[in-house]
């Protein structure tokens, strides 16, 4: 588990080491965070913007 800083509240968020970019992580402060990966594979988190249309079950 990697510990990554929440861009909204600054708290630490646990993220799976093998998380894919685009994975969503919920966090205590109520925001949904999106996993991003830098060129060296480093994990950063951004608030998730949402997507509009869909193809659900």
């Amino acid at each position, binding site marked *: 588990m990697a510990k990554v800083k929440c861009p909204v509240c600054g708290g630490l968020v646990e993220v799976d080491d093998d998380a894919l970019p*685009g994975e969503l992580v919920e966090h205590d402060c109520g925001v949904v965070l999106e996993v*991003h*990966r830098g060129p060296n594979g480093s994990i950063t988190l951004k608030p998730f913007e949402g*997507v*509009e*249309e*869909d193809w*659900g*079950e």
Partner: protein
Amino acid sequence: MPRVAMLYDVARLEEKMLAAELRGRAELELVHLPSQPLRLGEPPGGGVDAALVRAISLYRAVSSAAVAESWGAAVVNPPVPLMAAGDKLLTQALLERRGIPTPRALVAYTPEAAVEAAGELGYPVVFKPTVGSWGRLAALAGDGEAVRSIAEHREALGGPYKVHYLQEYVRKPGRDLRVICVGGRAVAAAYRVSPGGWLTNAARGARSIPARLDGEAEELAVGACEAVGVEVAGVDLVEDPERGYLVLEVNGVPEFKSLTSATGVNVAASIAEHVVWRARV
């Protein structure tokens, strides 16, 4: 090893399962659409044999599929079939043409014509947007006044919502049937049983229970995929008490997590196998 790209916007459980299955079979290039530009005619990593499109957004899916075609890759699903599957009216028109049974439907372009269409179909009438899913904005209207007001609200939303697509209400037995098709074969099916109310979407709390795939459902689902041109899809069928199965829609980027846990069928593996096969041929 063939090189396969997966194009997606959110890494849901489905995308994680697909990535894991693809990794065992191909060299996987993950393309998270929000984090980078795509280059027309210039494949990532110098070349891609096949691309699997998994964007939730219809327009991201169609446009990224088109870019993947410009790379010379085999694209699952290709852009035009994705568009046809993403719009329920385009889908139903293709199904009708091929003689696949569907609920009777009318299209109207003004609130007045929508009320006339509803009167012809009888009440209650299903009034759902041509695009979208999870049962979002789908309405069951009880009378002409309701139809008029829904139509007026839709016109205020604009865009595709100004096309009024009305369907007869099928008196289904509280469930629908989701069939996952891959490469011209039905690989798994589950009933989705509504917790109450007329919508049977998993995203609305419907429970998935495994269904035996009968020959008729399989033939209709596979025929629906062929009519629309998709290689991988989730086909929704409802059972009419008199006419039997009717096809409701074809999902070109299907979710399958609740179906997978209900049936135990590894849908992600079937899809990965198909994409890798397309990368080779």
